[in-house]
């Protein structure tokens, strides 16, 4: 293994989207950082707030319309017109979730617990909270706080520190 001269010490991961695959991309990156002993902070904003809102975190969906990478089981392209039918989005989302469960990727709430158990911190964006009329009580209990952008940047500094935007 090549030795990094300046190994990563801190990552701040911003999640601004609420689709399953976007939220999981952010969670996997964050949990992976925690597992490596890297200081980790997550900042959820706009539709990303769905992932840490009690009411929505267990029912995230993947888009079946306007998602050109979506395939049918077997690999054929997924027809966009099929995606508009009632229940299709829920079905595809359920398949995504079962596929992830098979490779030991936990549901969102458990994933967040894994991240905080290892010392990772979870924050919500104040501006998006105001926009969606959400209160701190609406959020998952493990959320450390609601921050303005400025407060987020105050926590994002230091050498060997990176910000990742999903």
């Amino acid at each position, binding site marked *: *293994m090549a030795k990094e001269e300046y190994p990563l010490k801190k990552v701040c991961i911003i999640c601004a989207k609420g689709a399953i695959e976007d939220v999981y991309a952010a969670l*996997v990156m964050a*949990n*992976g950082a925690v*597992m*490596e*002993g890297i200081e980790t902070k997550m900042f959820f904003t706009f539709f990303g707030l769905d992932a840490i809102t009690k009411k929505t975190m267990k029912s995230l969906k993947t888009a079946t319309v306007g998602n050109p990478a979506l395939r049918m089981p077997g690999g054929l392209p997924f027809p966009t017109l099929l995606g508009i039918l009632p229940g299709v989005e829920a079905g595809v989302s359920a398949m995504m979730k079962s596929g992830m469960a098979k*490779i*030991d*990727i*936990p549901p969102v709430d*458990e994933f967040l*617990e*894994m991240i905080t*158990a*290892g*010392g990772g911190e979870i924050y919500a964006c104040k501006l998006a909270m105001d926009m969606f009329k959400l209160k701190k009580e609406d959020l998952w209990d493990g959320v450390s706080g609601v921050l303005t952008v400025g407060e987020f940047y105050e926590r994002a500094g230091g050498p060997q520190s990176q910000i990742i935007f999903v």
Partner: protein
Amino acid sequence: MAQKTYAGVTVDVNEEGYLLNPSQWTKEIAVEIAKEENLELTDQHFKVLDFIREKHAKGETLTIRSVGNSGITDIKGFYQLFPGAPMKKAAKIAGIPKPASCV
């Protein structure tokens, strides 16, 4: 191939110090590797090490989550037992290869 001597036994290791042959592992070796990681092993540590050695012997993928569901410790406890990078640290001390898992 690199070699290292722990507790009077010479073992084969890779360039990162992971044992190449888990069958060369003994508890005495574990104690010595742990010392290099500034860890004093307790019974609880050994329970975790036994669990992950067993998982590895069965060819199962090791994840933090599986250790958390082992009944030995929860994930928080695992991070406390092996501070920093628990999965990598525990694998090294348990004499198994570096885990190739993203979760």
